[in-house]
């Protein structure tokens, strides 16, 4: 864990306490059981916003606390541990798009609402099942945006979409010209294909040519922070289980075949944490963000993939049951691995940035 300042420690402790006591995985089970496509608890999100979590990266003049991405990552990691279903990650990243590229008017109009939880925003970038920001067909004519975005996360709860068109990013409110087709994925969270048919759109004029890339870097890093929490939770749960499960009259934790695999996972997890924290710190420092974001997401993909598989295997048959939480982590893991860059896509991008 990075060396934190007092503010950050308080924020993390508060998030840990809330996630553990008010939002354990049983809360996600309730969300799932409700069958609501928006797939989060509105009261819980209101509470989170009340604690200031929706405005962590939003400047103070627009109602946020401006603590930065490292702080946002701490909260997201804790919520990831208990699979708390909420639009917090997407709302934060969408808000960052407005912070980076919005006019004063756009900032005044949206940021205070996004910080207070009164409104929720999300990103609508990709147009196919594989992340590909180069392949965008969505166009804007005379302030009207048209195109279809695939698998938009947190689409059902969103009041505002940050939409990638051929010539830049646009803000589009839900309503006329915006329709959703639910795509229920294995993680049973909110995803939808969103069709924009001449919807009123307002361009984010600031931020320069790299705005989309900059926003995606933030999406990668914050997603990786959620994945870090998940990997840590699977590891901790598995370790606890190995320490109490008895076979052959032995606690499983005494078997060297399992000890060494846990040592491997521990080492992987240490690297994943360094990579994710490195990404968060890069965003706050403004230095080397693109490279740090790839490292963060690529390591998150690699390690969570392994940990989620090993978690099931080491739990044995019980890990296959719906009654145990480890399967939920596996299902959410794959959705996040595929979001904002799979491992091979990130490798390609890393090589391109390095010039080989």
């Amino acid at each position, binding site marked *: 864990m990075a*060396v934190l300042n007092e503010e950050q420690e308080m924020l993390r402790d508060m998030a840990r306490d809330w996630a553990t006591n008010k939002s354990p995985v049983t809360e996600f089970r309730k969300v799932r059981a409700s069958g609501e496509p928006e797939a989060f608890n509105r009261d819980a999100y209101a509470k989170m916003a009340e604690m200031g979590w929706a405005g962590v990266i939003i400047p103070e003049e627009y109602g946020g606390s401006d603590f930065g991405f490292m702080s946002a990552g701490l909260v997201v990691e804790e919520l990831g541990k208990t699979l708390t279903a909420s639009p917090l990650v997407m709302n934060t990243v969408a808000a960052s798009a407005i912070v980076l590229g919005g006019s004063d008017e756009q900032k005044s109009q949206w940021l205070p609402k996004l910080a207070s939880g009164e409104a929720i925003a999300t990103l609508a970038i990709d147009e196919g099942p594989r992340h590909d920001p180069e392949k965008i067909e969505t166009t804007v004519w005379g302030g009207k945006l048209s195109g279809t975005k695939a698998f938009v996360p947190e689409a059902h709860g969103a009041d505002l979409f940050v939409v990638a068109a051929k010539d830049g990013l646009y803000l589009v409110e839900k309503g006329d010209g915006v329709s959703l087709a639910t795509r229920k994925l294995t993680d049973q969270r909110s995803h939808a294909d969103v069709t924009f048919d001449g919807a009123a759109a307002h361009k984010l004029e600031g931020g320069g040519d790299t705005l989309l890339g900059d926003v995606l870097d933030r999406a990668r890093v914050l997603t990786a922070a959620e994945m870090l929490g998940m990997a840590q939770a699977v590891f901790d749960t598995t*370790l606890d289980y190995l320490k109490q499960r008895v076979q052959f009259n032995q606690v499983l934790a005494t078997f060297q075949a399992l000890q060494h695999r*846990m040592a491997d996972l521990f080492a992987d997890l240490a690297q994943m*944490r*360094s990579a994710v924290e490195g990404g968060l710190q890069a965003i706050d420092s403004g230095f080397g963000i693109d490279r740090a974001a790839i490292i963060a997401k*690529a390591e998150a993909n690699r390690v969570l993939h392994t940990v989620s598989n090993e978690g099931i295997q080491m739990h044995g048959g019980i890990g296959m049951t719906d009654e145990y939480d480890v399967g939920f982590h596996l299902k959410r893991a794959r959705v996040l691995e595929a979001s904002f860059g799979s491992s091979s896509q990130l490798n390609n991008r890393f*090589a391109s940035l390095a010039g080989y």
Partner: protein
Amino acid sequence: MATQLKDDTQTHDDAFRNEVREFLAEHFPEELKGKGNLLAGLDGPTNESPAHTKWREAVGDRGWGTPTWPKEYGGGGLSRSQAKILDQEMAKVGAWNPIGGMGIMMFGPTLLEYGSDEQKKEHIPSICRGDIRWCQGYSEPNAGSDLANIQTFAEDKGDHYLVNGQKTWTSGGQWADKCFALVRTSRSDKHKGISFLLFDMDAPGVEVRPITMISGTSPFCETFLTDVKVPKGNLVGKEGEGWTIGKRLLQHERTNISGGGRLAEMMGRSLGDIAKQHCETEENGQLADAALRQKIANFEIRWNSFLLTARRAMEESKAQGGVSEISSVLKKAGTKLAQERSEMLIDIRGLQGLGWEGDSFEDSEMEDVRAWLFGKAATIYGGSTEVQNNIIAKRVLGMLDHQ
């Protein structure tokens, strides 16, 4: 008040930076630029050029090869921030620390912690100057990973010990002046029967035979000890404390093997750049072999997150005032990545990357081949990867011993 303090520190640091710059300008010769011997201490003293010797002496006189060690024993007596400045300024001009070897990496820090004042006064100054080479008498033919199984016996003869036994994998034994060793002073208890003893390598009864490794080099030796007389004053700590002291020393060894900075230096250029020289590229400069490109990027990403981890371990240790628990993974992860890189160099260069001797290979190519082979030792020595896994599982994760 706080600002004032900061300004004073700043002025102080600037003055020190100037001192370092002047020192480097005066003493660091152009011809040694960037030629730091990464395996200093494992290499023979015969390789040392006159310029190298002069540079070593200049640094040794200041104690700057051991910048943070106490001045009273010949160290630099610098604060951490000053040591950092020294590092930065040396790196800027391609200078490197000529004082190396096991004395600095392992034995010195351990003696500073456990030695008597007399022992420190006797041994530390010569380590700081790089005059005396130390070697490690730990492993034995039947005590590798099971190190506590050592059998070399030191018999109490009143004013001295009489030592008999055999040590192996004695790094640099053929060039060393002195040895720090684990010996058995009692057979009644496996761990508590071990003591930490120092002896001279030219003492009667010490015989050294270099072992040729698969890399063709002989950095390790067998050391035979027959009726070697060792004065009682050479015992570090008390009889029976050898295991505790010896383990502490191994912590220093692990930290050094995995030290992110050193490995980063060893890693040198990016694999992608090397591949662009040896492999076909597209018009846009991308490697034509997409699978190789993926493999290299994947490696470089993991390598970068390892470096971030090494840095984090250091920051956490500083903040907590103790060794961070992730330090335990650095040796295991760093050595594995270094091996992987060596394998990838071969993959990139093809058969040209497997040259053994002759003019048709670049020196750097052949060095990489030897390093690839010798690098296999890194996951075995200093506590093998399997031993590291045991340490992590039991001490960090609290997984129990088999009943």
